[in-house]
């Protein structure tokens, strides 16, 4: 009976009204401090049909966690005169410093390429904004090089079955942040997709920042370079000298 109602509702309402998406992130603040060895964020929430009934079976869920973008230069090594040196390079204005995606099914079965590109659904579709005129094939080569590099360090990840749905209403995805995660404001986006269309989306932010002594050190190093250098030098001399004295006594 329930399926019949659902089917009827689907027929009546398909595309006409938006699904209700209630997303949440397990923590909105990630603190980088002593003992931080990476963490796991839980992106979860509920998906309901416009009437407020369970609806997850009709929708695919995609969650994306994106770090602040940065301007970078990607260099490619080539063999020149017998040794591997940096040869070609490309400048990108907006490479995400972190990018993680999880979805209920492989992206190419949820949406077509055009939609995926518009919503940046997947590492293939990152909008990197190269600087200057660059031939698309070359850009593709560098982009996949960048993705491959960052996947190795865990800064880019894509888990195409990473979203699990329970009771057709609650979805959840675990996204790992490695210890080398960059600081900044991250956006967590959730998309509900049906029949290749994004029907609902919601976003929230996660702040990744250093705290306590780590933050103090980073700020000190950044703002008072000269003093910081003096402290580093003093520390080295003091430690060397103390060790020398201690061993002279033995």
């Amino acid at each position, binding site marked *: 009976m329930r399926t019949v109602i659902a089917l009827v509702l689907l027929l009546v309402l398909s595309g006409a009204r938006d699904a209700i998406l209630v997303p949440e992130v397990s923590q909105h603040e990630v603190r980088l401090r002593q003992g931080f060895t990476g963490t796991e964020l839980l992106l979860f929430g509920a998906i309901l049909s416009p009437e407020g009934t369970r609806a997850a079976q009709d929708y695919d869920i995609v969650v994306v966690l994106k770090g602040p973008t940065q301007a970078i230069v990607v260099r490619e090594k080539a063999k020149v005169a017998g040794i591997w040196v940096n040869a070609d390079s490309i400048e990108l204005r907006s490479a995400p410093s972190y990018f993680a995606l999880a979805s209920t099914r492989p992206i190419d079965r949820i949406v077509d390429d055009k939609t995926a590109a518009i919503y940046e659904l997947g590492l293939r579709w990152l909008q990197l904004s190269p600087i200057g005129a660059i031939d698309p094939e070359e850009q593709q080569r560098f982009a996949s090089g960048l993705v491959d590099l960052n996947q190795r360090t865990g800064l880019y990840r894509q888990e195409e079955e990473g979203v699990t749905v329970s009771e057709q209403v609650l979805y959840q995805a675990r996204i790992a942040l490695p210890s080398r995660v960059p600081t900044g404001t991250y956006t967590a986006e959730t998309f509900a997709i049906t029949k290749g269309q994004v029907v609902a989306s919601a976003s929230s932010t996660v702040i990744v920042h250093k705290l306590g002594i780590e933050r103090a050190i980073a700020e000190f*190093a950044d703002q008072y370079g000269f003093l910081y250098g003096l402290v580093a030098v003093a520390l*080295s001399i003091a430690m060397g000298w103390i060790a020398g004295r201690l061993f002279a006594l033995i």
Partner: protein
Amino acid sequence: MDVYLPIANLSVNGLVIVGLGALTGLLSGMFGVGGGFLTTPLLIFYGVPPTVSAASAASQVTGASVSGMFAHYRRGGVDFQIGGVMVAGGIIGTGIGAGLFNLLTALGQIDTVINLLYVLLLGSIGSLMANESIQTLRAEKTGVRPAARKRRHHPLVASLPMRWRFYRSGLYISPLAPLILGILTGILTMLMGIGGGFVLVPAMLYILGMSANVVVGTSLFQILFVTMATTMMHAMTTRAVDIVLAGLLLLGSVTGAQLGAQFAQKASPVKLRLVLAVIVLLVALRMALGLGYQPDEIYTVAPL
């Protein structure tokens, strides 16, 4: 023991870093080299960004040379006069090195240049040292004394104008020679994050012709000041000195340096030099392989 490094932005195993420091400290105490030529590549291998590795290794070398230098100073093994000239050169060299560092970073060739420098310097100096110590060892065995060296120092050194007397080193040469040597090692320190000891010691012995008993102490004296200047330079320009990383390295290296210095007094200097030569050659070989073989990852990323 996980430690979060606030400048390198990643967490490392603290014990591994202390152990790394102890290893290089041991070398520093035994051979009078800073040990930076091992620390920097090992840190990079461990995953610490190259600039942070070079900048923090410099302060580790400072610590190791302080305790090493005091040990030699107590035995009268430091020539402050020639050391002072070399420090002056070293500081000039650090400035030049900083300029080169920025230029090469902008060109994207800093890593290649650093690797090439490692291969060339370590390869040539390693072979020189190995050759020399093997010959001495063989001579000791057969009982035939090697022919005395014909000249004290390189003819180019003798041709430089305005000579000074350096009593402790037993030299009457132009101060320009140690000054130029200082400048060169200063550049190397800034570029490679090394103290330059493995370049300095042979150069002081074979090019300047200094007395062997003041070579190690004086080289540590020069390294001490040049690495201090390097740390300051990095703190003000690249801002890549990670004080937590440096502290961990120091903890290991100052202890290692003391143990190394005590060990050096008991061991035969010729055998010590052979061991150092082998280590230096191994590092050079590893670097050469890295340049010649296709790297695992041919892409690198740098902030714009």
